[in-house]
C-alpha cells in the first residue's frame, strides 16, 4: 500500500511539473545528423549566435522518426525554420507542403558557388528549394596492401580472385541493394526511373542484372552482402576492394587497413559505373522563409568558411565548389573526401519525383530473384514493372458517397435499435441506478481511452475512405476495401497467388498460431519450473530469462538477423559443425518464416513467463496439497487444478498476445524484411508498405487496418465462444 501511495505522489508531482514552455524563438534547426556532422553544425550555429546575437536552437532527431516528425509538426506550425535532409525527398516535402523556395538564402548570384550537379539536384519546377550542403555517393575503396595499383575495370578486379589469399574477396558491395546496383545499371546505359515511371526494363537492365548475378556466382562478391558485412570484410582485410560511401571511412579509422578511394571502375564492353548522387540540403519551411535570420543562417552554411568546417569536422563532401581549390582541402586528412568529391562529379543526381519512391522494392525483389537464379532477368524485371504500375494505378473517380452512407447508416441504426431496446427493457432504470456506484470506478478510464485510444483509431479508420496522400485526399468510398478483398481485380484463380490478400492472411494466421503456442508453452514450462522451491539459483534464472524482454528489440532483432546469415551466421556455423549443409535462410519461405518465428518466440516468451509467474502466486497452496492428499498424479494436478486456476489471469494475456502477434510488424520487418519477395510479410507489414513504401497511400493502409481489425474481432469472438464452451464442461 505504501508503494502505491508513493506512486500516486510521483504522478501528482509529475503532472504539476512546469511544462517545457515555449522554446526561445530565433532560428530553429532540425537535423538527423550525429557524430562529426552534428558537431560541425553546432559549432557553426554557435558562431552565428555570437556574431548575430540571434539564438539558434538545434535538435537532432533519429532518422527513423525524422520524416514522421516533420510531417506532423510543420503543417501545424510547430516545425523548425530550417531542416536538413537529402534532396531526393524533395518530392515528398513538396507534396506535404513542408518546404518553401530558398529565396535569398540561395540567390541567383550564389549558383556559381556550388557544384553544378548539386544545384541541379535541389532545383525543380524552376525553383531552388535548398542550399546544397554536401554530396553523398559511392566509390571504390582499394586495399593497397592487397592491390598495388587501383583497378580500372571490373574485369581487373575479378581477375584478382586467383591471386588473392583464400578467404579474401576481390570485391564486396551490397549487391542486393538497388542503390548500389544502380551504378552497374548506369554503366550499361540503363536507368531506374524515367518519364515518371519504373524504367528498369529492356536489354540494358537485363544485362546489368546478369552482371550482378555473375559476380556472386563466380565468387567475386560474397553472398547476401549486407552493409555491415561489407564493413566487416573490408575492415578486417578480407576484401581487396569495396564499393561504399564516405561512411565506411569512419569505420576504418583504427588504421589496420591501408586503403585509398578511387572512382568506380568501368565495365568492359559497357561503360563507366556511375553511382547515384544524393545531395544533403538545408531546406526552409514556410516560417523559416519569412524569417531573414533563418535565411541568413542557411546561406551561411554554404559559404566557403562553413564548408571548411563541415569538411574538416563533419567529414562532409561539401558542395561548395571553391573549397576544393583551397589549400585546406589538400590536407592529408581530407584525402578520402577529395576522392569522393572527384567520384561525385560523375554521379547521377537521384530523381526528385515523388513517384520514384515505390520503385525501390520491386526493383530490389527482381535483383534478388536474378542473383538467386530463380528467374531470368527479363521475367523478373517485367514482373517488377507490372507490380509498380499496379501499385501506382490512379484512384478511381470519386464515386457517389451513397453506398458508404447507407452502410454506415445501417450500422448506426442497428446500434440505436439495440440501445433503444435495451433502454425500453423492464427494470432498466433500476439497473442503471444500481450501476451508479460502479460508474465511479470506471469513468476516468472511459474518458482516457476514448480521447487517447479510440479517437485516434476512428480518425485512422476514417481515412480508409480516401485515396492519395494525407494532404491531398480524394474520396473513394469503399473502393480501397474492394481493391484489397478482390486482390486488385485479379481473376478468382489467382486469389491465392503470391502477394494476394488471402495468401498473406493465411501466412498471418500461421504466424500467430505458431508464435502464441510457443510463447504460452515456453512461458508455462519455465514459469512453473521457476516456482519449484528446490531451485537454488531461482533469482538468477529469473533475471537472465527476462533479458530478451529487457534489451531494446531493435538491436536484438538485428542480432538474430545476423545469426541467420548464409555465410557468416552463427546458426549455419552450428549446422556445419554438426555436419549439415548451410542454409540460405532468407531464400525460401519456410526457412525465412522459421527465422522470424525463432526471433519472435525469443522476444515474447519472457512476457508469458512473467504472466505465469504472477498468476501462479494466486493459487492457494492448500488447494494443491488437497489434490495431493486425494492421490492426484502431478499431471492430473496440473491439468485439473493448476491450469483451471491459472485461466482467469492467463486468458487475457493469451487473447491479447494473439492480437499483438497478429500485428507484430517489427520482427518481420527487421529480420526477414518480407523476404523472399514479400512471401513472409504478414497483413500489417503489407499495410505498412502501402503507407510508407508505396507513395504514402495512407487510405489504402487504413483499409488494411480496418480489415485486420474486423478479422481479429471475429477471431476473438470465436475464441471466446470456444472458451465459454470449455468452461461449461464439468471440471
Amino acid at each position, binding site marked *: *500500500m505504501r508503494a*502505491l501511495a508513493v*506512486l*500516486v505522489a510521483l*504522478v501528482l508531482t*509529475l503532472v504539476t511539473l512546469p*511544462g517545457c514552455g515555449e522554446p526561445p524563438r530565433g532560428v530553429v534547426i532540425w537535423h538527423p545528423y*550525429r557524430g562529426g556532422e552534428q558537431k560541425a553544425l553546432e559549432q557553426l550555429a554557435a558562431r552565428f549566435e555570437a556574431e548575430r546575437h540571434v539564438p539558434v536552437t538545434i535538435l537532432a532527431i533519429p*532518422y527513423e*522518426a525524422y520524416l*514522421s516528425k516533420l510531417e*506532423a*509538426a510543420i503543417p501545424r506550425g*510547430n516545425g523548425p525554420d530550417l531542416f536538413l535532409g*537529402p534532396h531526393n525527398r524533395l518530392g515528398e516535402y513538396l507534396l506535404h507542403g513542408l518546404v518553401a523556395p530558398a529565396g535569398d538564402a540561395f540567390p541567383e548570384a550564389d549558383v556559381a558557388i556550388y557544384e553544378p550537379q548539386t544545384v541541379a539536384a535541389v532545383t525543380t519546377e524552376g525553383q531552388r528549394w535548398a542550399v546544397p550542403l554536401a554530396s553523398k555517393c559511392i566509390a571504390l575503396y582499394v586495399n593497397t596492401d592487397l592491390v598495388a595499383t587501383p583497378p580500372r575495370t571490373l574485369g581487373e578486379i575479378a581477375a584478382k580472385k586467383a591471386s588473392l589469399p583464400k578467404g579474401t574477396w576481390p570485391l564486396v558491395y551490397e549487391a542486393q541493394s538497388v542503390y548500389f546496383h544502380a551504378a552497374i545499371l548506369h554503366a550499361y546505359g540503363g536507368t531506374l526511373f524515367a518519364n515518371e515511371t519504373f524504367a528498369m526494363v529492356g536489354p540494358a537492365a537485363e544485362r546489368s542484372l546478369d552482371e550482378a548475378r555473375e559476380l556472386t556466382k563466380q565468387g567475386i562478391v560474397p553472398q547476401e552482402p549486407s552493409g555491415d558485412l561489407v564493413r*566487416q570484410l573490408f575492415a*578486417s582485410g578480407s576484401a581487396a576492394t569495396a564499393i561504399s560511401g564516405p561512411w565506411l571511412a569512419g*569505420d576504418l579509422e583504427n588504421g589496420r587497413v591501408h586503403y585509398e578511394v578511387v572512382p568506380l571502375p568501368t565495365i568492359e564492353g559497357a561503360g563507366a559505373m556511375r553511382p547515384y548522387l544524393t545531395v544533403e540540403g538545408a531546406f526552409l519551411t514556410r516560417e523559416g522563409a519569412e524569417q531573414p535570420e533563418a535565411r541568413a543562417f542557411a546561406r551561411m552554411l554554404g559559404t566557403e568558411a562553413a564548408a571548411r568546417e563541415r569538411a574538416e569536422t563533419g567529414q562532409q563532401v561539401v558542395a561548395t565548389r571553391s573549397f576544393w581549390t583551397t589549400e585546406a582541402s589538400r590536407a592529408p586528412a581530407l584525402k578520402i573526401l577529395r576522392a569522393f568529391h572527384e567520384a561525385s562529379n560523375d554521379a547521377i543526381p537521384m530523381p526528385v519525383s515523388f513517384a520514384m519512391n515505390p520503385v525501390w522494392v520491386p526493383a530490389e525483389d527482381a535483383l534478388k530473384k536474378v542473383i538467386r537464379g530463380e528467374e531470368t532477368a527479363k521475367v523478373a524485371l517485367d514482373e517488377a514493372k507490372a507490380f509498380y504500375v499496379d501499385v501506382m494505378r490512379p484512384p478511381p473517380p470519386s464515386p457517389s458517397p451513397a453506398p458508404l452512407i447507407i452502410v454506415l447508416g445501417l450500422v448506426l441504426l442497428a446500434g440505436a435499435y439495440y440501445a433503444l431496446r435495451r433502454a425500453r427493457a423492464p427494470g432498466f432504470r433500476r439497473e*442503471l441506478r444500481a*450501476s451508479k456506484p*460502479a460508474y465511479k470506478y470506471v469513468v476516468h*478510464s472511459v474518458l482516457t*481511452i476514448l*480521447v487517447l485510444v479510440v*479517437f485516434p483509431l476512428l*480518425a*485512422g479508420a476514417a481515412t480508409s475512405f480516401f485515396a492519395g496522400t494525407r494532404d491531398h485526399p480524394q474520396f473513394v468510398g469503399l473502393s480501397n476495401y474492394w481493391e484489397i478483398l478482390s486482390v486488385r481485380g485479379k481473376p478468382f484463380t489467382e486469389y491465392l497467388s503470391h502477394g494476394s490478400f488471402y495468401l498473406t492472411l493465411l501466412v498471418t494466421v500461421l504466424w500467430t498460431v505458431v508464435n502464441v503456442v510457443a510463447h504460452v508453452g*515456453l512461458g508455462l*514450462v519455465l514459469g512453473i*519450473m521457476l516456482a*519449484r522451491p528446490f531451485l537454488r539459483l531461482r533469482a538468477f534464472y529469473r*533475471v537472465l530469462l527476462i533479458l*530478451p524482454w529487457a*534489451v531494446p528489440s531493435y*538491436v*536484438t532483432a538485428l*542480432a538474430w538477423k545476423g545469426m541467420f546469415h548464409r*555465410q*557468416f551466421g*552463427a546458426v549455419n556455423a552450428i549446422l556445419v559443425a554438426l555436419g549439415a549443409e548451410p542454409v540460405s535462410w532468407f531464400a525460401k519461405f519456410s526457412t525465412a518464416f522459421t527465422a522470424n518465428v525463432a526471433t519472435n518466440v525469443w522476444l515474447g516468451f519472457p*512476457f508469458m513467463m512473467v*504472466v505465469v509467474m*504472477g*498468476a*501462479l*502466486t*494466486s*493459487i492457494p*497452496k492448500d488447494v*494443491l*496439497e*488437497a489434490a495431493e492428499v486425494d492421490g492426484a498424479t*502431478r499431471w492430473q494436478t496440473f491439468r485439473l487444478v*493448476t491450469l483451471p486456476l491459472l485461466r*482467469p489471469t492467463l486468458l487475457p*494475456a493469451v487473447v491479447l498476445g494473439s*492480437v499483438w502477434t497478429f500485428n507484430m510488424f517489427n520482427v518481420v520487418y527487421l529480420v526477414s524484411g518480407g523476404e523472399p519477395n514479400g512471401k513472409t510479410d504478414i497483413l500489417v507489414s503489407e499495410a505498412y508498405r502501402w*503507407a510508407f513504401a508505396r507513395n504514402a497511400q*495512407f487510405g489504402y493502409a487504413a483499409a488494411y487496418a480496418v480489415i485486420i*481489425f474486423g478479422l481479429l474481432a471475429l477471431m476473438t469472438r470465436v475464441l471466446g465462444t470456444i472458451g465459454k464452451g470449455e468452461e461449461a464442461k464439468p471440471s
Partner: protein
Amino acid sequence: MSADLAQNDRASPLERMAVNAILVIAVIYALYPVLWVISLAFSKGGTPELRALPIPRYRDLSLDNFRLVTGWGDPARSWLFVRQLGNSLIVSLATAAGAILIATPTAYALARHEFVGKSAGLRTLLLTQMFPGVASAVPLYLILDALHLLDTRTGLVLVYAATAVPFAIFQLRGAFLAIPVDLEEAAMVDGATRTQAFLKVALPAARPAIAVTALFAFMSAWNEFILAATLLGRESAFTLPVVLQSYVGEYNTSWGAFAAGAILVSVPVMALFYVAQRQLVSGLTSGGVKG
C-alpha cells in the same frame, strides 16, 4: 509462500537435474543474442562481426562506446545523458503509476460489479487492441496539440498510460476474479464499506498482479521512441530510446554505440525486475486466504 507445487519438496535428484538442465538451455537461448550485443558494446569501433562465438577479441576490448554514449569527459554531454536517463525514468515510472491508477478501480468494478454497459465496455476494450496503429502518431499529435500538452512529459505519459490501460485492466480484472470473493464479503459483514473492502482487502491480495502489470506498463514506455521523438521537441526533454535510436543513420549505424546504449538501457529494467520478483513470489500469504 507461492504456489510451489506441494510435491516439489521431495523432488528426486534426477528431476532436479532435468529442471536445471532445461533452465540452463533456456538461459542459453535467452542469452546468446544478448552476448552478441554485449560483445559489440565492448569492442573498439563496434563493427558487428558475424561470428559463431560472440566474444570480443582481447585486442578489441574497449569502453569507447560507453564513453561515447554517456558523453564521458564532456560535462555538458554527460549532464545531458543524466537528464535523459532521468526523463526516461520519470516517464516510465509515471506511466506505470498512471496506468495502475487508472486501471485498478476499473478492473475491480469489472470483476465485482454488475452494471449497464459492462460487457460492451469489455468488448470495446478488447477491440482497441486490434486496430494496428499504422499511422496513429499524427492523430495523437493533433490531440496533444489541442490539449496544449505537446512537448511536455505529462502529455507523453498520458499517451503511454492510455495505451497501456486496456491490457492493464484485463490483467487486473483477471487477478481480481481469481481472488475469492469471501474475503471482501467477510470484511463488509464486519462493517467495511465497498470502497474499504476494495482498498484494504482486494488491493493487497492483488499485489503480485499489480506488480506484473506495472512492469508491463513500465516496459512499454521504457523502449518507445517514435512517439517520444514526435511528441517531444527539445533534446533535454528526450528519453533515452530516442537518443539511442539516433545512432541509427540512413546509410550506416554506429552499432557499437547503439549496443552500449542498449545495455545501459536494460540495466535499470533488470534491477527493477530483480526487486519486483519478490512481489511476484510473496503471493497470498499476507492475504490469508483459505480455500
